[in-house]
């Protein structure tokens, strides 16, 4: 097992890496909460870094939605509510006729026309002198219920009575916690029932139905005239940029982003000949978006990435330095028991790597998740479809790579220093 040296003393064996691995896994598990605190330093740095990267990946705005209103609509107290395709000369009266005329409970005095833009016109058709009105595509004619007021009154009375009875019953519940929960539930239910009853009593016009269409391409960002133009006939990127009046002053021509409706996101560098050639051949279809980023914003973001790297480095070095120094005495003891310097260093490096991988992965999940949630909630969830799998995986790679590398590098110096100390000196250290 051990070859005796000339001096009559054996040479200490190198333990296999697996042994060090098992010990370091155990060490992390045993001092779990201490490890969590160390990992938190790594985690926060990486989460910050990834959130900045995610922001970069999500800088293009969502593709604008386009709507069409091909019909006029009749709703409320008519015999047959309908959608009628727009023809010239349709009026409010004629469309009510088409809908089979008024129902018995129709309130002819307050017929409401909701224009496409949202304006409302109220017409009194009980009075024969009221002039008819012409309709345009997207207009909605609503005939209210003559018994609507009465319905609202009844609903209000029923709901209020039920709520009062409910609240009285709730106060008799003995358990304080259950009482609060049930009281809240009654109040919420009451408010919900009341608002539902009041809006569905035949007095409020429904929303105008609209049809989503996709027919234009869109240009956004640092252009003189960002525009939405019909996308037929193979418009090239170059032409689209020209139609938008060309680049604005601080346009970032190196990172023009093209988001195709049914293809992965492309980034074109228009300062290279290759990019310019691509701009002449790349055609835009309906629903495609060209985004020209702001060059100064990009510089700001690069600055943020650098800052987040600095924060990462400081946070991680601090965590790892502490976690090594506070164990000097333990290292001294291990060396007294026959541990080689190499084994001590291995132990700390493996532990650092395990912590680094785990914490950076968590940092990626949280940093990316938070940014995605924020962008989705503020700009529409459709925006997230712009992210490609490659971008997401690249962020994961950067997070785990940077996190693990920084953690390991930050551990090497203190670990080697601790391992090379004479055991007597390491044992004297008091923290």
């Amino acid at each position: 097992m051990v070859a005796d040296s000339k001096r009559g003393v054996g040479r200490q064996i190198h333990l296999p890496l697996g042994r060090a691995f098992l010990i370091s896994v155990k060490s992390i598990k045993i001092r779990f909460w201490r490890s969590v605190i160390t990992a938190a330093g790594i985690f926060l740095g990486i989460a910050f870094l990834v959130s900045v990267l995610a922001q970069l990946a999500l800088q293009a705005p969502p593709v604008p939605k386009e709507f069409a209103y091909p019909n006029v609509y009749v709703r409320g107290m008519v015999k047959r509510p309908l959608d009628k395709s727009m023809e010239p000369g349709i009026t409010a009266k004629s469309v009510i006729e088409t809908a089979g005329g008024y129902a018995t409970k129709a309130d002819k005095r307050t017929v409401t026309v909701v224009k496409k833009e949202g304006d409302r016109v109220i017409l009194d058709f009980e009075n024969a002198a009221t002039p008819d009105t012409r309709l345009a595509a997207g207009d909605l004619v609503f005939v209210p219920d003559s018994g609507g007021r009465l319905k609202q009154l009844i609903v209000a009375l029923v709901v209020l009575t039920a709520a009062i009875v409910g609240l009285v019953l709730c106060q008799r519940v003995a358990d304080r916690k259950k009482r609060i929960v049930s009281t809240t539930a009654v109040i919420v239910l009451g408010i919900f029932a009341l608002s539902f009853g009041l809006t569905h009593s035949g007095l409020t016009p429904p929303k105008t139905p609209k049809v989503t269409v996709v027919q234009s391409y869109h240009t956004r960002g640092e252009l003189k005239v960002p525009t939405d133009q019909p996308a037929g006939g193979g418009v090239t990127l170059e032409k689209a940029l020209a139609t938008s009046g060309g680049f604005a002053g601080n346009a970032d021509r190196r990172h023009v982003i093209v988001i195709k409706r049914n293809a992965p996101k492309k980034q074109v560098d228009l300062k290279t000949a290759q990019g310019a050639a691509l701009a002449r051949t790349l055609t835009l279809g309906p629903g495609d978006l060209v985004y020209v980023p702001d060059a100064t914003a990009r510089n700001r973001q690069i600055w943020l990435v650098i800052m987040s790297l600095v924060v990462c480095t400081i946070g991680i070095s601090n965590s790892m330095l502490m976690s090594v120094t506070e164990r000097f005495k333990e290292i001294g003891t291990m060396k007294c028991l026959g541990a080689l310097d190499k084994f001590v260093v291995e132990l700390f490096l493996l532990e650092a790597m395990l912590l680094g991988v785990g914490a950076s992965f968590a940092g990626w999940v949280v940093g990316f998740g938070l940014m995605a949630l924020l962008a989705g909630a503020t700009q529409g969830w459709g925006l997230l479809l712009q992210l490609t799998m490659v971008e997401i995986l690249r962020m994961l790679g950067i997070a785990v790579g940077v996190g693990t590398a920084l953690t390991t590098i930050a551990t090497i110096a203190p670990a080697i220093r601790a391992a090379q100390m004479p055991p007597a000196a390491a044992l004297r250290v008091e923290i």
Partner: protein
Amino acid sequence: MTANEYVVRTKDVAKEFTMGGTTLRALDGVNLDIFRGEYVSIMGPSGSGKSTLFNMIGGLDKPTGGSVFINDVDMAQLDAQELAYLRCRTIGYIFQTFNLIPVMTALENVTLPTIFAGMPTDDGTERGIELLKMVGLGDRLNHKPSELSGGQQQRVAIARSLANNPAIILADEPTGNLDLKTGKEIILLLKELNKDHGVTIISATHDLKMIDVSDRIVWIRDGKIERIEERSEIDLQVGELEGVES
């Protein structure tokens, strides 16, 4: 192992510390030969240099002058791997502050040196249990150091020092953190090991109870050996010395 009668020899060992520009001579030419199977106490007041001598003999620090021989091998000639081998198998250490690994159980602490010696896990565990039973902690295998009393922790440390059957046990103030009764128990345990297993025990201490069990007492003052007494010479004085703190 050589059949030499000396297990440890020091030759003109000196150690200087430099602190804030001033040089402190902690050891000043110490010559000491220790026989195989002997129980030696190194006595002296605090700051006399006995802990420094302990570190030199144990290979935990390097002398600035002179040499230390373990089994006739000059420690200064050894590389890191050979020193580690020596610390692992030839010498067992016991400290005043026990120095157990706080996050490991008693059994894991005792098993650690067997891991470093390359012993298979099962054999190491078996050995650890056997040793802990021997020091009277057979029912405390899975307790952490914080769940044990000072005396029990020192017993774990003694079991650990024996893990790889060392020829020498070095004890630095082993009773320093213990009360009188527990200290006495630990001293008796060390003596028992010395008698039954033939382990050489070298103990730096200022606990006068040690005198009772020692074969020789080395008195150190100001980094120099003041005198070396055989047990037989001082037998009569023990009663008078007990209770007197140096």
